[in-house]
């Protein structure tokens, strides 16, 4: 019975490693400049965790097999002087591994999130609300007008509470329900939530950042491939959360210029 258990452990361990090694469920294509860093970190974590998992399961199966059929009257063996040395070695080995993953992971994360955006990065404001994203472009003046919460009115499509009568900076702002950006241009995304917590997740961009109500956050990224990608909310935000999404269209600079002109004309 114990030997069947040992073989089952080996089969499960190897069976679960096969799809990882064969890349059966791989991550979506990467379309960002910072993506390789993130992917590298994922691969390192998977490799180290995978080796530890396989080694420990195979060792477990080996011991179960080896000691499954003890001879009657056989002496119980124990480590001379106790197993303290082995325990310390395991602690040091696993501790070093976890610490190394943490240090390298923090470095990769900091290089994405703590580095400031370039001075010429294109600002786009995104507002999340139950259950839609809206995007605002600053127009030719390059400045966003302030958000007046008392003027937010979805019925009048004033999603950002823009007051064009009094705010000079708001007059040329362009509000859209879809996000379009030029390829190979750094984007500085200013994030604001009007109600509860949401998240901005574009798997292909390797970007996932929560909106925190009362706290305006920003992220920056550069998309490297033209295409249409889904932006989804990944923070449970209420009854319509399952349906909260928008699209990110990465365009050539020329297409983007035409698109923004069309959107400006629609305001």
């Amino acid at each position: 019975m114990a030997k069947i258990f040992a073989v089952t452990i080996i089969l499960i361990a190897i069976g679960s490693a096969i799809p990882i090694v064969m890349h059966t469920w791989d991550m979506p294509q990467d379309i960002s400049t910072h993506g390789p860093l993130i992917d590298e970190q994922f691969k390192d974590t998977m490799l180290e965790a995978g080796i530890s998992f396989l080694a420990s399961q195979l060792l477990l199966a080996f011991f179960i097999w080896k000691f499954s059929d003890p001879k009657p009257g056989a002496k119980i063996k124990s480590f001379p002087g106790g197993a303290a040395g082995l325990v310390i070695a395991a602690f040091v080995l696993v501790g070093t591994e976890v610490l190394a993953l943490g240090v390298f992971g923090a470095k990769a994360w900091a290089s994405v999130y703590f580095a400031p955006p370039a001075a010429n990065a294109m600002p786009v404001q995104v507002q999340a609300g139950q259950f839609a994203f809206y995007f605002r472009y600053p127009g030719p003046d390059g400045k966003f007008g302030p958000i007046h919460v008392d003027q937010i009115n979805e019925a009048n499509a004033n999603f950002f509470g823009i007051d064009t009568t009094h705010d000079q900076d708001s007059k040329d702002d362009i509000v859209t329900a879809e996000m379009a950006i030029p390829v190979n241009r750094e984007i500085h995304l200013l994030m604001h939530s009007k109600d509860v917590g949401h998240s901005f997740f574009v798997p292909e961009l390797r970007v996932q950042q929560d909106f925190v109500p009362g706290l305006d956050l920003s992220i920056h990224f550069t998309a490297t491939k033209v295409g249409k990608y889904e932006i989804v909310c990944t923070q449970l935000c209420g009854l319509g959360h399952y349906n909260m999404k928008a699209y990110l269209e990465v365009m050539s600079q020329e297409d983007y210029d035409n698109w923004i002109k069309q959107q400006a004309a629609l305001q």
Partner: protein
Amino acid sequence: MHDMSAHAVQHGAPTSFLRKHVFSLDHKVIGKQYYALALVAVFVGMFLSWLMRIHLGWGSFAIPGLHLLSKTGAPGDVMTPEYYLQLMTMHGTIMVFFVLTTAPFAAFGNFFLPIQVGAEDMPFPHFNMMSFWVTFVAFLVLVASFLVPDGPTLGGWTQYAPLSAVGSVSGPGQGLGVVLWASSIAIFCIGQLLGSLNFITTTLDMRTRGMSLMRLPLSAWAWFITSVMGLTAFAVLMPACILLILDHVAGTSFFVPSNLVINGQILPHSGGSTCSGNTCSGSSDIPRSTSPSSPAWASFPTC
């Protein structure tokens, strides 16, 4: 290291049915009671996951009798998407708190820890009895949220603010449902704090002669470490739940910042912080998610 003979027996043999089977002071009976509670909870949680799976597979399928659970959540016995979220939240809460924490930690720990360290019983048997009954009440309060008009909360078992703090304006079950959820978890925390106190004292002060800390079985170590983590985590989670309840019933704004607009209305709250709420919740998330498993890991070598 202590000599058990130095400790007086904490309680005599039970003399009545109630003392023996219901309000027992015996750690083994209390362990079994916790295990029974975890079993009931796992069946409730499992039933909810069946309903959720049916909805995921066949969204418009009418589940006979579901309207009895909620008229608004299942009109014509067909589950609405928001009722799915409510069931998911209850499933997660029941499984994490009343199964994963209760069974490996409270149930097996109560039963086995004194035996493994050579103690006659826990040092505070009345606290031990209270910890179970308080947890039982917490479970009843949580399940009671199925019976309120809007049904249980839909905010997920992590209950991140401000979704959990702004009230029914943010969705069905976000009013009274959240208040009952937070009350249940606050009560649950009291039970766990009492239990942790007993576990820590048993491990440190009730070990029999010769049972040094380095000779403790791995499972005893796991329950001890889990208790220390629980003491710190639940001591944070309980006040967080109380503050969340105050945000609902007393008009405070602990977890609601200024200028939130929901359904076209500016909320009257101001000055709160979502981060403080989520840090309180998050600080207990990690011990909560690791604490149930640590005794489970440790139980393998002892089996």
